[in-house]
Structures are given as structure tokens and as C-alpha cells.
């Protein structure tokens, strides 16, 4: 029997060894994967009542702050968003049952003070129990954001403003928005009810449309088509001169593609961009062919997720499966067919033209500060894509300035500033006709690199004329750019 007992001992020892190995797997090897698992909301639960850093805008307006609760409350702190709906889609919310969103999500570790930079600033911190949390300063400006909100009013739409030189986002506003305070409140029933109500709202107020929803870009996409022509060497400032036409019949079909309002247009690149000539740009796309169009769209960032530091950004789409379907390619060249873009992506298109063809990685983070106000992290601007060469970008930049000076984007003009732009009207094919009114543009002091680029989208406007973008969206974009230029001038 003794031999068996010895073996039993070895067997049980082996069993416990297996347990020890498995325990190492769960607590150490797989730990990070388990902590990051989407079903795991332990970190939110833990952080919910913990000290949490403040979020301020570039102009030092407090947009998220943790405040102590009255004596006897269930939790020690409550998260408050003093600006209400103004930054709901960017700062987001931090709640127990409905997770976290926006900056509250992407910079959760920093706000909770869990990064190494914040935890151990000095040897003393090992022995002194301090509440180390990080404060986040955004690149977004509350003053510009308010202008965007005031200008868009209660029309569904999006406003994006970005510094083309650095990729710093200056405004990200879309309406409808919501008040994050109720979602982050301690009355979980009310928070849940509010969340359900917002989720069931057909206008999707919870969705950050500026970077998470795609729309037909319409004629604003002609900037990308023009870039494709320039980069392929097929188009220059002077040539070719597209024939004056009322309609263009792409190969393989008899269905003509017409200009807005049945007008006749044609001429050089500058001329066709000024009047947003459908026939000319459709022909340009067909002449170039599929590959150069796809390559250029992707050089601007299409078909990829932009590296913005906000949760779940949407990728913009330029089709890659034309398979010699030239009518579809012709339509894509003027931003129709299956082309779709986020307002953020269209702002990046304008910004790239203004920044010598460089697409900077968009960001909302200016810096992280510790509780003594010392900066522990301020990321450098990163180049994300090279959309086009510097000389070609300059040609396109001047062409877009022409659109403001002599074309459809006259309403974008700001006295004393160099302003370029491109309008767009994406027809929704409804009856009565409705369309998305677009404008993209950039502005800066004459002779200097543009210091702001914008994209404005007003959804579902009545009518479908090419004027819609210039009339509806341009005033909003101009006001936002003026606000940025004023703020930049004041700040030096």
C-alpha cells in the first residue's frame, strides 16, 4: 500500500502544480487581456468613486470636474460637466452603468492617476499616500465651440475646426447633443432611463457625428479628385481645358450626368472648381481611372480609421471595387455613388491642402498635468498621411482661394485674411428634394500658413441647388474661423 500512497502524494502534488500554473496564467500572463476585456467594467467601478482629474479646454474653461458629495452620500465624489451639452461628444461621460465615453474613456488611466508618470514622481510617493491624479488640458476651445453651437442652432449638423499645422482639433460640435450630467449622476435609475431615452431617439443624440458618422461628401470631394489629377500629372493649373458642357455621358452608359440647374460649365482647374463643375470633374475621374482615384483618396485618409484620440472613430469610405464600372467612377469623382466621409475627414482634406499636402494626426489632447500643475505629457504633432506634394498642394490651395474670391464659397470670405474653400450639396434623392449642405475651408493671415481649417455640414436642408452649401454652411464656417483667428491673434 505504501507505494500507492507515495504515488497518490505525487499525483496530488501534480494536481496542485497544475493549479499553480493556471493561477499564474490568470493572475499574470492573461491579466492584461482580462482587464481590457470589453465585458470587464471593474476598472470603471473602481475609478467611479476614486479621485479623478479635471478636464479643461485650451482656453482654461473647466469642462469636467469631480466634486465632493454631501455627507452621508453613497459615494464620496460626483462627476460634473459644467458646460452641459457643449462637450458631450468629446469629453463624454463617466458613469457606472453606461460606461465611459469621449476623453473620459480614452484618457481614463491619466485622469485616474494610474500611469507611471503620475504614480511615482519622486521617491517620497512610495511612502506618502497622496492622491495622484492627472488633469487633462484639451486643444478644443470653449469660445470657438460656443460659436459653433450658436451658429448651427437647432439644425442637425456638425462643425469641425482644426489647426492644419499641428492636427490640434479646435472645435468638434454636432447637434443634437445631450447633457452628460444625468448619465454620470448617482441616481442610477434616472441615468439608465435617460440613457435609454437618448438611445431610442431617432436623431441619435448620443452619437458623435463629427467623427463617428459618415455622410455623402458631395462636391467637397472634388478637392480630392483635383488632387488626384494634379498628382497623376494629368492636370495642371493651365491644362487641360475641359469642354463647356451641360451634360457628360460616361462610357458604358447612355445616362448623362448633368450640372446643377442644367448650367453649362468647363475650362481650367481653377474655373471648374470655382463653379463646382460636375461634368468636368466626372470626366477627370474617368480619364484618370480607378487606381489613381483610390490611391489619392486613401492618401487623404479614406478607407482607414483616423488616429484621433477619441473612442471608436469611423473610417471614411471611397469604393475600391469599381471593376471597370466607369459610370460609378464618374459619380464617385463628384462625391456621389458610395463615397462617404465623416466631417472630421473632410476637415482633414481642407487642412492637408493648407498644410503643404501633409495630413496631421488629429488630436484633442494638449497636455496632461499632475496635481501640482506640472506638465507630465504634451504630445508632439504627428504626420499621419502625405496627401500630395507641396507644389501641387499650393496649386490646389490657390484654386480653393479662387472659389472664395470668385466662386460658390464667397460667403466664406473674411476681410484681411486669406481664405480658401469648397462648397458641397449632397442630394439625398428625396421628394421633395433635400440635401446635406457642406463647406470645407481654411484661413490664415495673408502670406502665412493657414492656421485653421474647417468642415461644416448641415443635414437635410430643403432644396438641392449647388448654392445651398454656400448659403447655409458657409456663414457658420466663417464665424468659426473668425473666432479661431481672433483667439490665435489674441494669444500671439
Amino acid at each position, binding site marked *: 500500500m505504501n507505494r500507492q500512497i507515495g504515488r497518490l502524494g505525487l499525483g496530488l502534488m501534480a494536481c496542485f502544480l497544475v493549479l499553480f500554473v493556471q493561477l499564474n496564467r490568470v493572475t499574470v500572463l492573461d491579466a492584461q487581456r*482580462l482587464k481590457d476585456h470589453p465585458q470587464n467594467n*471593474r476598472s470603471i467601478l473602481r475609478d467611479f468613486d476614486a479621485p479623478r482629474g479635471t478636464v479643461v479646454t485650451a482656453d482654461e474653461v473647466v469642462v469636467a470636474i469631480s466634486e465632493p458629495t454631501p455627507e452621508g452620500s453613497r459615494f464620496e465624489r460626483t462627476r460634473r460637466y459644467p458646460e452641459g451639452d457643449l462637450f458631450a461628444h468629446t469629453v463624454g461621460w463617466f458613469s457606472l452603468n453606461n460606461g465611459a465615453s469621449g476623453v473620459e474613456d480614452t484618457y481614463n488611466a491619466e485622469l485616474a492617476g494610474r500611469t507611471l508618470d503620475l504614480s511615482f514622481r519622486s521617491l517620497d510617493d512610495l511612502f506618502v499616500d497622496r492622491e495622484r491624479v492627472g488633469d487633462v488640458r484639451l486643444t478644443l476651445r470653449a469660445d470657438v465651440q460656443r460659436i459653433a453651437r450658436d451658429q448651427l442652432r437647432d439644425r442637425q449638423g456638425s462643425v469641425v475646426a482644426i489647426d492644419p499645422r499641428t492636427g490640434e482639433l479646435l472645435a468638434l460640435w454636432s447637434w443634437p447633443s445631450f447633457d452628460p450630467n444625468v448619465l454620470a449622476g448617482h441616481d442610477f435609475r434616472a441615468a439608465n432611463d435617460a440613457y435609454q431615452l437618448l438611445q431610442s431617439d431617432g436623431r441619435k443624440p448620443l452619437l458623435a457625428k463629427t467623427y463617428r458618422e459618415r455622410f455623402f461628401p458631395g462636391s467637397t470631394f472634388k478637392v480630392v479628385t483635383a488632387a488626384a489629377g494634379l498628382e497623376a500629372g494629368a492636370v495642371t493649373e493651365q491644362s487641360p481645358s475641359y469642354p463647356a458642357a451641360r451634360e457628360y455621358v460616361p462610357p458604358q452608359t447612355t445616362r448623362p450626368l448633368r450640372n446643377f440647374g442644367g448650367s453649362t460649365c468647363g475650362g481650367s482647374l481653377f474655373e471648374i472648381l470655382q463653379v463646382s463643375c460636375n461634368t468636368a470633374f466626372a470626366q477627370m475621374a474617368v480619364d484618370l481611372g480607378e487606381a489613381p482615384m483610390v490611391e489619392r483618396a486613401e492618401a487623404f485618409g479614406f478607407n482607414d480609421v483616423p488616429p484621433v484620440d477619441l473612442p471608436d472613430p469611423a473610417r471614411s469610405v471611397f469604393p475600391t471595387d469599381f471593376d471597370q464600372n466607369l459610370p460609378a467612377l464618374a459619380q464617385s469623382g463628384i462625391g456621389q455613388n458610395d463615397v462617404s466621409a465623416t466631417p472630421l475627414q473632410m476637415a482633414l482634406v481642407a487642412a492637408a491642402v493648407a498644410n503643404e499636402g501633409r495630413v496631421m494626426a488629429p488630436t484633442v489632447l494638449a497636455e496632461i498635468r499632475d496635481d501640482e500643475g506640472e506638465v507630465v505629457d504634451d504630445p508632439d504633432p504627428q504626420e499621419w498621411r502625405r496627401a500630395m506634394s507641396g507644389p501641387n498642394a499650393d496649386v490646389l490651395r490657390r484654386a480653393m482661394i479662387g472659389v472664395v474670391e470668385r466662386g460658390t464659397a464667397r460667403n466664406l470670405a473674411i476681410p484681411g485674411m486669406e481664405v480658401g474653400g469648397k462648397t458641397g450639396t449632397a442630394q439625398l434623392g428625396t421628394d421633395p428634394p433635400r440635401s446635406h449642405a457642406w463647406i470645407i475651408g481654411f484661413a490664415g493671415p495673408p502670406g502665412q500658413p493657414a492656421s485653421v481649417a474647417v468642415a461644416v455640414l448641415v443635414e437635410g436642408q430643403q432644396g438641392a441647388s449647388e448654392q445651398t452649401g454656400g448659403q447655409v454652411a458657409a456663414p457658420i464656417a466663417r464665424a468659426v474661423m473668425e473666432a479661431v483667428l481672433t483667439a490665435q491673434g489674441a494669444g500671439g
Partner: protein
Amino acid sequence: MIVLRRRTELGLIVVGALITAGAYALAGLGRDAEIPANIVPFLGVVLGMLVAAHVAVRRLAPDADGILLPLAGLLNGIGYVFIVRLDESQADTGRLAGLQAVWTAVGIGAFIATLLVIRRSRDLERYRYTFAALGLGLLALPLLPVIGRTINGSRIWISLGPLNFQPGEAAKIVLAIFFAGYLVERRELLALSTFRIGPLHLPDPKHLGPILLAWAVSLGVMTLQRDLGSSLLFFVLFVVMLWIATGRTTYLTIGGTLFLAGAAFAYTQFSHVRDRVEIWLDPWPVAQDAGYQIVEASFALADGGIAGTGIALGTPTRIPEVETDFIFAAIGEELGLLGATAVLCAFLLMVGAGLRIALRAESAFDTLLAAGLTTLLGVQAFIIIGGITRTLPLTGVTLPFVSYGGSSLVLNYVLLALLLRISDNSARTHGATT
């Protein structure tokens, strides 16, 4: 020599009590940043109970092994601290902790009573068939109307007035005694091989009856009471004891085959068995539902990491049944890999001590009984820790001495007393050994 064993025991008991009190103080610090005001009385009570048990051993089994009692006391103490800590987040704060304290006292009482009543382990051998009847009766008890209760889907409880009790916990020990007695009687016959099928040398079929009976009982427990853990435990216990008694590996093969057959049968026939296996293989699709417990336990262990969050600084109360079956996950979260490994080591040391008692036992019956009781302890710990860490499909059994639960705690103290009794008997026969 004998004095040395008891001195070692007392010293270890003091260390164990100090560790328990230290953990209790840390739990207070973690909770509200101050050492609990009752830390000194707490240490006094812990020490008092264990010293009472120690004095009983000194009087009643002076030559018994000296490390089992301190290890049990340590596990019991750590478990109690965690129950207090977990209980604080419940609505009726302190209820479970209070009950567990009472059950611990009852357990120590049962420990002393067992040592008092059973003076020679061989006395047990004589009543083996009485124990067999008693064991089967205890197993069947929860199936009776009126007193039987189904709690959390398992019909393993009986209810007497305000008290709920799991008679299966007692049945395990009683049946281990019966098995030991029966096998000692029949081991010669069972070891003979009279015919062979393929590579298997089999004994006379009529001697195979008992193993088939044990298999049937295990299956019965599983199907009628839906208690997979206990079913597995019974079967392993019997096969291991049969193997030790006869020295025939054939029985392990037969046992393994029968186990696989039973498992396959259960998997195809019972949805609750199939669910357990599927949750074990991939809990994520049902993470908010049937797999919630195991997924939360994984998250808890991952949160704990190497050093743990610290007692009362984690969030183990998110795991359902954390005070009973899943207490090991709470220990893993708050004491980390290090603390969890310490618990594993404590069980391994108990297993080692138990098997040493088996090796030195003076009679075949004692050897078998000690090995059986040790198997019960070790395999039960393995089954539940394995379930929590997803090494095995989850079957709900308690972690001996650590989990909340009166029946389990009291009967584990009885098991401990039996091991010490065997140890004491053999040491007297052999004279002083260590």
C-alpha cells in the same frame, strides 16, 4: 519527543493566530484606514479557540501529528477574515461572519468530541456496515419530503427548524470509514485476477459489485441532487481507496473508464452538466448570464495580479457566492498570486502530513482511512480551485476550512480529529518516532 510535537504545534498555532489577526487588522486598515478597535479581543478569541483544541490534543492524543491543527486553524482564520470583509458589503452586515464564528466554535467542539469519543481508530472498523447504512442514509436524506431543501438548484440540504445542513458533508467521512473497513476485509480477493479482457486483468465479477455500486451512487447523487462536485469526490475517493488497498492499477483504469462513460452519459443527458462544460470551454458568450460567476472570478484574479489589491481594497463582492464556493477568488484578488499560492501550499502541506500519517499507520485499516480522508481534503480543494481558475469545469464544493458554511467546516474538523487519532495511535505503537 512527544513534548516537542506539542510545543511545535503550540508555536505554530500562535504564528497562525498572529497571521489571522494581522490580516484582520489589514482588512480594517483597507476599509476605513484604521486598525479595528477589537483587534486584541479578536486575537484573544482566535488564540483561545485554537489553544482549546491544542489542549484537547495534548490530553487526548498527545503523540499526534503537530502541523495539521495549526494549518487548519490558519486556513480557518484567513477564511474568517475574508468572510468578515465580504460580509460588510452585504445588506445584513455581520450576519454571515457571526454565524461562521459560531460554526467555528462548534467545529472545534466537534473536533474535541471526536477525539474524546473515538479513542482507538480500530473501533471504527468494527462498525463498518453500520457506517455504510448511515452514509447512504445521509446521502438520501435531502431527497425526503418536508425536511429536504433545494438551494441554488442542488437538492443537498435538509432543514431542521432554523438550521440548514448538508448531510452529504458527513456522508463523505462516514463512507470513507466504510470503504476503508470493507476494502481491508476484501483486499485479498479484490487483488486476485481471475480472468482478463484484453489488457485488463479483472477480479471475480462478484467482487466488482462494490465499485459498480459506488459508481451508481455517484451517478445517483449527480442526477437526483444535481451535485456534481460531491459526485466526483465520492467516485475519486472510492477508486483511489480501492487502488491503494489492492495495489492493482487495473482499478484505476476501470475507474477512469467508468468515469468517462458516466461523464459522457451525463453530458448527453443532462443540460446542467452540458452547460457547465460549455461554460468551462468558453464562458464569454454567456458572460452576463450563466458564465457570469466564472468570468467575474477571472476578472477578480486578473485584478489581483501578483501582490493583490490588499484586503478590503478589491471588489470581490461582484462574484456571486463569493463567501462559499468562490472565496478563493476573493483571496486571489485581494492577496494576489502570492496569497493564493500560500493557500495552495497550506493544502499541499496538509495533504503531505495526512499521507505521512497513512504511511506510518499501524494497521491497514488506519492506512486506508488516513489516505482516504487526505484524498477527500486534497481533491475537494483541487476541484473547487480548479473550477475557479478554469482548470476544470466548475462544480460547486466548498474550499475546506476556508469557505463560509457550517456543515463543511464542522465536518472538516471531525476529519482532522480522525487523522490526528490515527496519527496518535500509530505513534504509540511504534513508540516515539520523530
